[in-house]
C-alpha cells in the first residue's frame, strides 16, 4: 500500500459531499502531498476522476475492496 500524508473517511456520505470534503482537506495540504480517501458512494469513482482532471490534482490510485472505494489523490 502506498504512502499518504492525510486520510479522509467519507464513508456513508453521498454526492457531492465526498468531493467537497476532499477539496477542503486538499486546501490544507501542500503541493506533492497525498490524500487517502475512503468512500462508499459508487458515484465517487467517476467523480474523483473528473475532479482530478479539472483541478490539476493527480488521482494516483482508485480501487474497490469489500464494497468500499479507496483513492489516492496527489495535490498538484
Amino acid at each position, binding site marked *: 500500500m502506498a504512502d499518504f500524508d492525510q486520510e479522509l473517511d467519507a464513508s*456513508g*456520505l*453521498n*454526492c*457531492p*459531499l465526498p*468531493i*467537497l470534503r476532499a*477539496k477542503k482537506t486538499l486546501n490544507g495540504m501542500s503541493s506533492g502531498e497525498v490524500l487517502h480517501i475512503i468512500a*462508499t*458512494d459508487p458515484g465517487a469513482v467517476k467523480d474523483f476522476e473528473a*475532479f482530478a482532471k*479539472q*483541478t*490539476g490534482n493527480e488521482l494516483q490510485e482508485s480501487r474497490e475492496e469489500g464494497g468500499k472505494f479507496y483513492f489516492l489523490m496527489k495535490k498538484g
Partner: protein
Amino acid sequence: MAEKKLALIATKGSLDWAYPPFILSSTAAALGYEVQIFCTFYGLALLRKKMDLKVTSLGNPGMPMPMPMPVLLQALPGMQSMMTVMMKQKMKSKGVASLEELRELCLEADVKMIACQMTVDLFEFSPSDFIDGIEYGGAATFFEFAGDSDVCLFV
C-alpha cells in the same frame, strides 16, 4: 487555469428542487468555478434564514411512492408534512447532505447569491427574512455575470 464561471437561475422552492442549485454550485466552486445563483420567484426560499422547505407528490406523478396512493388521499391535510419528514429521513439514511449544510458550503466557497428584487417586492419579503451576504438585483444584473459564463442553467 483561467477561472470558469457558472451562472444559475433558481426558481423553485421545494425541498427536492432546492438540491440541484446547491449541489451544482458547491461542486463547481470546489472545481474552481466562480459561481452566482440568481434566485427568483419561489427560488427566493433558498435564501430565507430558515429554509423549512417541503416536498409534495401533488402534480408530480413521477415521484416514487412507498405505496400506491390515490391523488385525493395525497391532498389530505398533514400529508405534505408527512412526506417531507419521510423524505428527510430517507435522505439522512442515504448520507445525502441537508440543504442547510450544502448552503453553508456554498457560502464558505464564496458562491454569490442574488435575490431578484422584483420578486422580493412582489412577495413583500424584507432583507431581514434572508441570510446575510446576499445581493439584490434584476435581470440586467444576472446578465452581467451570465454573459461571460461558461455554464448557464435555469433550475
